[in-house]
């Protein structure tokens, strides 16, 4: 590359903008991570006096699903026994009357849900926006650095807001675009530090969109009655297919191929 197309940038810019900006965004992400962990930890855990029933209901549904899926691996009497345990007329687990959750309990779970989402949104977006505004205010109007590979002129709009030099290489970027690059790039580093607990904005956005699309279902958490009814209907339809039935025929086939080849 000819020297004419390379800018020489002031060392002060590096010392006072590039490195501090990187450190700031890094610290902000760490702060966000710990603050969300703290706020989530403050929520009251499942109240043991009334919480265990919900857990045991969920477990019952899970066991029944497992039974339907894997019923073929246990002998027929075993399958019938388990089916009886779940779906019998009066004594089956799935037929237990669920005490309808009073409106009060609904209200208790309801605001938690709303609060949780709002806290998520606020905690997630606000520091980023605030820092972005700060960066724009303090560090605008100069080139911060250079991306090490050549870019097409279309990138100039993205990378060089506020600078009107059409002859400048589009690889040079301003502070705001570097800030955004940092936000995206540090996601990987956060994953390194926090494994799966790292806050992932893009993923959260997609998840929220999906849950919005599914329509405003009542935020009722786990609706035990409906789940039980559905499970019971499915269990009544389930038949036992003994998977080991054809094992002699299969063994003959396998042995034939093994021994016949010799």
């Amino acid at each position, binding site marked *: 590359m000819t020297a004419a197309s390379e800018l020489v940038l002031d060392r002060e810019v590096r010392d006072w903008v590039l490195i501090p900006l990187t450190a700031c965004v890094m610290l902000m992400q760490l702060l966000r991570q710990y603050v969300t962990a703290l706020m989530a930890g403050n929520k009251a855990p499942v109240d043991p006096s009334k919480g265990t029933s919900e857990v045991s209901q969920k*477990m019952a549904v899970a066991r029944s699903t497992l039974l339907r899926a894997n019923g073929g691996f246990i002998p027929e009497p075993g399958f019938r026994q388990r089916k009886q345990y779940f779906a019998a007329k009066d004594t089956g687990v799935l037929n237990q009357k669920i005490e309808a959750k009073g409106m009060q309990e609904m209200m208790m779970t309801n605001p938690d849900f709303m609060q949780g989402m709002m806290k998520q949104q606020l905690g997630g977006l606000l520091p980023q926006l605030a820092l972005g505004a700060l960066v724009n205010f303090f560090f605008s109007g100069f080139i911060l650095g250079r991306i090490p590979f050549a870019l097409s002129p279309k990138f100039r709009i993205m990378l060089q807001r506020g600078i009107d030099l059409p002859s400048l290489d589009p690889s040079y970027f301003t502070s705001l675009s570097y800030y955004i690059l940092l936000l995206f790039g540090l996601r990987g580093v956060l994953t390194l530090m926090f494994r799966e607990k790292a806050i992932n904005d893009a993923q959260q956005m997609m998840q929220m969109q999906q849950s919005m699309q599914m329509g405003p279902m009542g935020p009722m958490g786990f609706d035990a009655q409906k789940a039980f009814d559905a499970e019971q209907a499915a269990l009544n339809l*389930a038949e036992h297919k003994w998977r080991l039935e054809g094992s002699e025929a299969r063994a003959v086939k396998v042995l034939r191929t093994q021994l016949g080849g010799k």
Partner: protein
Amino acid sequence: MQAPPVPGAPQGAPIGGRASEALGDQLYVPQNIKNNYDVMNFNKIFASLLAGVFAGISGITGYKGFIVYLLAHAIMAGLLLLKASPHPRRFFPSPTTLAFSGILSQTEMLTFILFWTLANNVVHLF
């Protein structure tokens, strides 16, 4: 809130298959698969980071940097295969996930570009 994950549900076996069918493929435990994927992603992000710093410090620019990126991923995949060596199939559903997953993923690519830019600028540009 979802129902808790059903532990150990077989994913290779069809539900109630015909009696003459084979008993199904291996059983996959979802938590173990997830753990394996997490470990692999961790290592690949780390490899991208190191590749970025290496490319930046050595002043590589242009498309050669991406060759460094691919090389780093290949070396990392080789090391992971070495670690999983007796039966790589025991760890991942498909044998090619170790080598090829995550090379073009947004997270790793952006990590690489960020650190490449940072290292290049700090060392060479100022």
